[in-house]
C-alpha cells in the first residue's frame, strides 16, 4: 500500500515517527472549474510522544491535513504514514483517537457508555470495556459523572468526555481539531493543562489544530505555521518550555517571546482574515460588493 516495504521488526516501531507526511497535496474537485488547492506539497513529521500544533489563518487547510492523516479523505498526491503504517491501515487498527470542536457525544448514552463506544465497535467484552472506560474517566477526573447523560454536563466536561473517548482504545496518536475552541477562556486554560498532563502520563503523540497562538505555544513542543491557498507549511517554532509547564509558564518571558515569534511568522505570510475570505467568496460567486 505504501511505497516503503514494511519491515517485520517490531522494536523499530517505537523509533518511527507517529506521523510522517511526504509531499502530500490535496485538491478538491480536481479538473473542474471549482477545483480548490487545499494543500500543496506538505512534508511533516510528528515524533513519537511529541506534541505538534498546526496554526494558520482560515482556509490554510489545517483541518484538511488532520482528516488526511485520519484517512477520512485521501490525498491527491504524496504519502501518509502513522507509526510506519499506511493511513488506511492505521485507521482500521484504531491507532489514533480523534476529538473535534464539538464534543460529538451521543445524547442517549450515559457518559461511560459514550467512552465505551469505540471499544464496543471494536468488539471488546462488556466487563473489559467498562473497566477501561472508567479508567479513562478517572484520567479526565469525571468518574463521578459516569452515569450522567452528556446534556447534563457543562461544555468543558463534555469535551473531557470526548478526550476520554479518544483515548479509550489506547491510541499512540491523538488528532485534535480545535477541541477547546468553543470553551470560555478559564475552562480553556484548565483543559490545556489537563491535556498536557494526560499526554505526559500516557505518552501519546498529539497533532493539534488551533486558531489561538497562546494555546499553540503553551501546549506544543513544536508549532507548525501554515499559509493559505494553497495550504503549505511556512515555518516552525520550537517552544522548549520544558516538560512541567504550569500556570506560571504562561507568565514567563520565554512564553511571550515564543508567542511573539509565532505571531510575527503568521503576520509575515499575510494570511486573509475571515472578512477577506467572505468577500472573496462573494466575488467568486459573482456578487459585486462595491
Amino acid at each position, binding site marked *: 500500500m505504501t511505497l516503503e516495504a514494511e519491515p517485520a521488526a517490531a522494536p523499530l516501531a517505537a523509533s518511527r515517527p507517529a506521523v510522517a507526511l511526504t509531499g502530500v497535496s490535496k485538491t478538491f474537485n480536481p479538473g473542474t472549474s471549482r477545483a480548490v488547492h487545499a494543500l500543496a506539497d506538505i512534508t511533516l513529521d510528528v515524533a513519537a510522544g511529541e506534541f505538534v500544533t498546526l496554526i494558520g489563518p482560515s482556509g490554510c487547510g489545517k483541518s484538511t491535513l488532520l*482528516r488526511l492523516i*485520519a*484517512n*477520512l479523505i485521501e490525498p491527491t498526491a504524496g504519502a501518509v504514514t502513522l507509526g510506519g503504517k499506511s493511513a488506511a491501515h492505521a*485507521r*482500521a487498527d*484504531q491507532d*489514533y483517537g*480523534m476529538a*473535534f470542536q*464539538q464534543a*460529538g457525544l*451521543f*445524547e*442517549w*448514552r*450515559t457518559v461511560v457508555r459514550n467512552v465505551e*463506544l*469505540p471499544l*464496543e*465497535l*471494536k468488539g471488546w467484552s462488556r466487563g473489559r470495556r467498562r473497566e477501561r472506560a472508567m479508567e479513562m474517566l478517572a484520567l479526565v477526573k469525571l468518574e463521578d459523572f459516569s452515569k450522567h*447523560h452528556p*446534556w447534563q454536563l457543562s461544555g468543558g466536561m463534555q469535551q473531557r468526555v470526548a478526550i476520554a473517548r479518544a483515548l479509550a482504545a489506547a491510541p499512540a496518536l491523538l488528532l485534535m481539531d480545535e477541541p477547546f475552541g468553543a470553551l470560555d477562556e478559564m475552562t480553556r486554560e484548565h483543559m490545556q493543562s489537563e491535556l498536557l498532563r494526560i499526554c505526559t502520563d500516557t505518552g501519546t503523540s498529539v497533532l493539534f489544530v488551533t486558531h489561538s497562538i497562546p494555546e499553540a505555544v503553551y501546549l506544543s513542543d513544536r508549532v507548525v505555521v501554515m499559509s493559505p491557498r494553497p495550504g503549505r507549511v511556512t515555518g516552525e517554532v520550537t517552544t522548549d518550555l520544558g516538560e512541567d509547564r504550569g500556570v506560571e509558564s504562561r507568565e514567563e518571558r520565554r512564553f511571550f517571546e515564543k508567542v511573539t515569534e509565532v505571531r510575527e511568522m503568521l503576520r509575515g505570510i499575510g494570511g486573509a482574515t475571515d472578512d477577506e475570505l467572505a468577500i472573496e467568496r462573494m466575488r467568486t460567486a459573482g456578487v459585486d460588493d462595491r
Partner: protein
Amino acid sequence: MKAARRVMMFLVAFALVAAGWELYKVLGPEEGGKLLGWQVLPRTAGSAMPHSWDIVRRLFQPERPGASRDAWRLVLAGAWFTFRLAMVGFLVGAVVGVALAVAMARYGIVRRGLLPYLAVSQTIPLIALAPIVVSWSDKLHPFGHDLPKWTTVSLMSAFLAFFPAAVGTLRGLTSLPEVADELLRSYAATWRKTLIRVRFPAAVPSMAPAFRLAASASVIGAIVAEISTGLAGGIGRLVLEWAGQVTSDPPKAYTAAFGAAALGLVVIGVISVLEMVLMRNRPKESTA
C-alpha cells in the same frame, strides 16, 4: 406532571369543541346560510346537528328500538375489531418502512431510484386500490387456504402506514451530525454495527413523530379499506351503516364517527407512551 397537564389540555379542547358546536346551533341559521345560491353555512336543525349531549346519551341507548345491546357496545366492539386490523397494518407498514429506509440510507442509488415512487404511491386513492387488492387476494391460496378477508384490509392499512415510517426513519438515519459521522468513520466500524449502535438510536427523535403519523394513517387506512371492501364487523362498516340512518336517528350516526375518532386517539396514545419510554434519556427540550 406533564402528562397530567396534557390530559387536562385535551379535555379542555374537547369541551371547547362541544361548546363551539352548541354555540353555532344557537346562533347559526336553522336552514343553513346561502351565498349567491350556494349552501355555505350548515343547517343547525336537529337532524343535521344533534345536540352534543344527545350524541353522548345515544351511546347508552339500545342500538335499535328493542335491541338488547346498547349502542356503545357495538361501537366498542367495532373499534376493537378495527384496532386489531390497524395494528397488523401498522406493524407490517413499520417493518416494511424501516427496511426500505435502511436500504435507502445505505445505498444512494436505491434512495434516488425509490423515493419518487414511494411519494407517488401515496397519491393513489385507497378506494381505487381496494378492488385490485381484493381480486388479488381472491386468487392467492397460500398453503391451500383462502386468505381471510381481513388481510386485505390490513394490507391496505399497511400501504398507508409504511410511507411516513419510511420517510421519517430515512431522515433519522441520514441526519447524523458531521462530527458523529467522522467519528464513526475514524473507528473503521462496519456500517451494520454503526446502524444498530448509533444510527438507529440517533434516528429515534425523527422516527417517533413519523410513527405517530403512521399509526393514525393505519387506522384511517383500515377504516377506509373496511368500507371499500365491504368487510363487516369493524367501525368502518358501522360508520357507513349508521350514516344511512342519519335521517331517522341523527345522533346514532355521530356515535359511530365518535368511535372512529376515539380509536385514532387511542392508537396515537399508545405510540406516544412508547415514544416517552424511548425518549426518557434524551434532553427534555426537544420533545414536541
